[in-house]
């Protein structure tokens, strides 16, 4: 308790300095975000436009004649230097023109945000399960290091995190779809089928939660174990505080500092890493769209999708760092 109060006082004294530190923090991270977006967009641009087979060839497919390819190259201005075209491309992106998808034959912005919203739904529902479940299990395991409960939770989560998502999907589908016929095997999100949308989400969400939870549980546990080893915990135990009081009153908040960052980073996985789950269950999400775009060499969609996923990744990183800063007053100084 005393430690908390002292930290609080120190915080009040340094609130002004904290504000400045916060501004510096945000500025630094926004700069990093911009730098990353520039570097990544340039790399993706180079990758897609300079790799074997030029852009016009990718647009027209393998059966177009060389003459057609050359005409299109001229018309698209592809004979100009790369840097000029990159600058032009960035200008277009900034003005909101994301180009046209050759795979889906619609403007990129008409498809990319729909797919992001679908993945967002999947991610949100999964997140709502992952956070409380992994916190509960991680704390239960970490409060008594080496206990039977700890061993069981640690081993179970290690085993669950070892099963690749597609294998977990196949295992669960063979039980609940093929044998028991309780759930649909696909989640196409189309209403009017024989299965309501809520039941379509059950299996994809379960696979994501089981796969991702193993990792988060082990991070929460590790943090809890470390806190329980601190001298102030021993002091609390020695002065006769109940174990419950020690865990809830002293350990919990301090043990949450590291995992919050980890948990926020899971958003990144949930947005682009779920491509496997989306493929298993034919879910019309962002990851599967990127896979199709890559397979069909749909350049405009690849470039826009890559930028979106990097943007999400960097923003969640910044949020993670920010949460760390807010939770741990020592960093602010």
């Amino acid at each position: 308790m005393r430690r908390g109060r002292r930290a609080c006082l120190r915080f009040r004294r340094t609130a002004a300095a904290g504000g400045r530190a916060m501004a510096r923090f945000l500025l630094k991270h926004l700069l990093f975000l911009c730098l990353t977006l520039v570097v990544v967009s340039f790399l993706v641009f180079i990758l897609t436009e300079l790799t074997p087979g030029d852009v016009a060839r990718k647009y027209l497919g393998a059966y177009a004649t060389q003459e057609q390819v050359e005409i299109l190259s001229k018309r698209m201005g592809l004979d100009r230097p790369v840097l000029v075209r990159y600058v032009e491309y960035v200008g277009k992106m900034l003005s909101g023109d994301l180009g046209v998808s050759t795979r889906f034959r619609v403007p990129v912005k008409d498809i990319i945000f729909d797919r992001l919203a679908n993945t967002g739904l999947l991610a949100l529902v999964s997140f709502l399960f992952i956070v409380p479940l992994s916190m509960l299990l991680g704390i239960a395991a970490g409060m008594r290091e080496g206990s039977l409960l700890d061993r069981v939770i640690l081993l179970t989560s290690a085993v669950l995190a070892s099963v690749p998502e597609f294998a977990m999907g196949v295992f669960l589908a063979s039980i609940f779809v093929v044998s028991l016929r309780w759930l649909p095997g696909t989640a196409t999100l189309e209403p009017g089928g024989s299965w309501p949308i809520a039941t379509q989400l059950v299996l994809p969400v379960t696979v994501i939660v089981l796969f991702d939870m193993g990792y988060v549980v082990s991070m929460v546990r590790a943090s809890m174990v470390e806190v329980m080893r601190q001298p102030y915990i021993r002091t609390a135990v020695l002065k006769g505080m109940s174990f419950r009081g020690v865990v809830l009153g002293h350990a919990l908040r301090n043990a949450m500092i590291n995992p919050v960052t980890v948990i926020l980073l899971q958003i990144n996985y949930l947005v682009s890493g779920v491509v496997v789950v989306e493929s298993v269950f034919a879910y019309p999400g962002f990851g599967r769209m990127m896979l199709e775009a890559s397979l069909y060499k749909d350049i405009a969609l690849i470039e826009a999708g890559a930028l979106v996923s990097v943007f999400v990744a960097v923003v969640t990183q910044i949020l993670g760092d920010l949460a760390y800063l807010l939770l741990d007053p020592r960093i602010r100084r």
Partner: protein
Amino acid sequence: MDEAPRRGAQRGRALAAWLAPLANLAGSGATLVGLAIVLFWVAAALLAPLLAPYPPNATDVLAAAHPTPSAAHLLGADQLGRDILSRLLWGARRVLTVAPIAVLSAVMVGSFLGLAAGYYRGFVDLLVSRLADILLSFPVIILYMIVLTLFGSSAFNIILVVAITKAPIIARIVRGLTLQLREREYVAAAKMRGESALYIMLVEILPNARGPLIVDMCLRMGYTTIIIGVLGFLGIGLPPPDPDWGGMVKDTYGMMSVWPHMSLIPCAAISSLVIGFNLLAIGLRESAFRD
């Protein structure tokens, strides 16, 4: 004392120190299970040419009509009548060739960058760390999809992208360890002796960073096995027709309601191998802490 035997004794002690974590492993049941699973698949991979009852890509029309497990095909056959047991064994050989090469390449590149960043600090550190930040901020699976569809998904390209995306993680770990180890007395002594920076990094610092590195390599093997499986499942993995566990699932999971064994068996194989690596990693980490 003569120079040669002293060197020999030193080397013997060094070897014992390297092997100490292995001796400690015996303490944990889970670790032994992990070790047994990994050794099982390593043996399967090594002996695949002897153990496999059929060539991995040989089709059998009769088996295609009745693909369920039988005396002729112990684990059944797939939709083309290829023997699943044979494909499983050869698939183990393939994944256990590609994954270690990818992990070792990542460890070599990552260790080198991490050592340089931690030892020289300053500008080198800034460069390596920022580069790692940018590479790590890119969602890897998206990167794999873009690179492998554009350049083709050969074993070489898969090793290359895995090494490039995993090296920054290893570089971070090694950098952290190097920052601690560079302040040790034996590093100062080596500097006084006038050893080169390369010698100090490779002979004085790297061997002392091996504990966490070995644990990480074990975890990394598990992840890489998952990645190779996932790439195969997405259709951008090791090229067919040679067997690849993820690819075997991709080809058959549409037939789950009729022939579930075709996709369940390779799924069980890849899951067990990754579980083996991860249990081993947990045990290695615990025995490292016990020291």
